[in-house]
């Protein structure tokens, strides 16, 4: 498989053992890939390894033809991989405006021109709640607003790939719908998206491809609508990780 982001034979982990035991996956340009799986399956480890927060022990991570394994997290950001972490995704003691300024100043590696607007109007239109809050401390925003700010920061540099770690975690149902709608809009602007989610049904509705992980391996890699139609979707991501999934061969 080829694409804007290709992962092959990826091993990573903390301490002695590997948590990721040979992940193969690909994100085609302009698409949305959603990774689901039970807790402890290695989803978060995977996205942290992609973002450069955890070193890959084996395998390759290739962004648009360039191997990024040896790049630091800031270098990966500057080469076009934006990452929105789960929960702690804004600088809480800084204002909304300062959060956006930092994204613009540091994520672009000096490409952004000085002066001018911190965030362009087109992008801002995706986040209608932000403009009135520029002077507010990011820590005082609601969970949903913080998530929107984190998205806006990650998008200020027009990334090739946007990586989202459980964007709907801890949000009210109203915001959850907003978040997925925003993800879809961002994708419509040409940004490829690699997302980890617990709310599988909602996430898969907007996705092209679904990857199911268990025990640090890919158990299923299939079109999202196909996975949505499966009767035993719940057992795929909430099910016992030790259980051998009957669908393992479907990829």
């Amino acid at each position, binding site marked *: 498989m080829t694409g804007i982001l290709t992962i092959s034979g990826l091993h990573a982990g903390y301490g002695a053992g590997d948590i990721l035991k040979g992940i193969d996956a690909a994100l085609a340009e302009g698409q949305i890939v959603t990774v689901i799986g039970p807790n402890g399956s290695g989803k978060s480890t995977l996205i942290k390894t992609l*973002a*450069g927060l955890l070193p890959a022990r084996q395998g390759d991570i290739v962004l648009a033809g360039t191997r990024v394994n040896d790049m630091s997290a800031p270098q990966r950001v500057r080469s076009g991989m934006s990452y929105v972490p789960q929960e*702690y995704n804004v*600088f809480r003691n800084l204002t909304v405006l300062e959060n956006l300024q930092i994204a613009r100043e540091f994520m672009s590696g000096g490409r952004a021109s000085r002066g001018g607007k911190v965030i362009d109007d087109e992008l801002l239109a995706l986040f209608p709640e932000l403009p009135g809050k520029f002077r507010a401390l990011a820590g005082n925003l609601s969970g949903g607003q913080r998530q929107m700010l984190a998205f806006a920061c990650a998008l200020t540099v027009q990334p090739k790939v946007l990586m989202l770690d459980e964007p709907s975690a801890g949000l009210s149902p109203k915001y959850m719908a907003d978040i997925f709608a925003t993800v879809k809009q961002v994708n419509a602007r040409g940004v490829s998206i690699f997302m980890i989610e617990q709310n599988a049904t909602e996430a898969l509705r907007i996705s092209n491809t679904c990857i199911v992980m268990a025990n640090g391996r890919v158990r299923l890699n299939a079109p999202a609508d196909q996975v949505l139609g499966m009767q035993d979707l719940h057992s795929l991501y909430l099910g016992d990780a030790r259980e051998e999934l009957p669908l393992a061969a479907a990829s």
Partner: protein
Amino acid sequence: MLQTAFNGFVTGIIVTLPALAITLLFGVLKFPNFAVGAMMTLAAYMVFALNVQLGWPLVVATVVAAIAFGGFLIVVDYLTFRPLRERGSITLMVASLGLGFVLENIARLAYGNTARSFAIELARPFRFFDIRMNREQMIIIGVSTLAMLAMYVLLTRMPIGRAMRAVADNPALALVRGIESPRIIRWTWFIAGMLLAVGGVLIGMDRALEPPMGSSYLIAVFAAAILGGLGSPLGAFVGALVIGMVSELSTLVIPPNYRIGIPLCVIALILIFRPQGLFGQPYIRK
């Protein structure tokens, strides 16, 4: 009363610069640096060398020494703290205690225990209403205020200052926002070095130059930074003024010898009732 309050204000404002240095270093590096006292001492002696031995004007000597000392601390960090960075804050704190002994004794080895002073002319104190103030005190207030304003501009208006606050706030997020932490760490030491050099000169002007001059302020400096909330620059400023005033005003009701106990009491009370300090954020362990 008014005179005592004014003296307390001056004591407090001297403490603002090292308190700010501690709080910046703590924010970015996450350990309490107990070497700040000795760092001020060493920097003050560097200024002494340029000012008294080479005969440079005090202002020029201070500016040159502050820049040099900022660079010196980057080297010190590279040799002392950087190899221990992954070992946790207790190890770094103990290393800073050791570093403090070494730095203070470098000053002692070079200049002995004799008290010395900068080459500045003596000027007659003047009166403003009922308050007697001398020229050194005016310089201390003026320089500290300017340094604080400069720090405010740096931290809120300049990319490097914002990045320092971002790293202090959330180091992992800072990485994925493109901030190279080694570069920010170097800047933080450089800026802390400049603050400590200026702080050392002000202490030397207020009292005299002697090897324990910096470390004698250590408790007050930490009390100020903790009271304000470690990691909060605004807190360091307010905390320093409160500590200075409270210690000085306490002499109206308790014997002056016990004044040194006041910052310790403040630390104890803060840790019991509001461990995050006045402006600090509650510490969240992820």
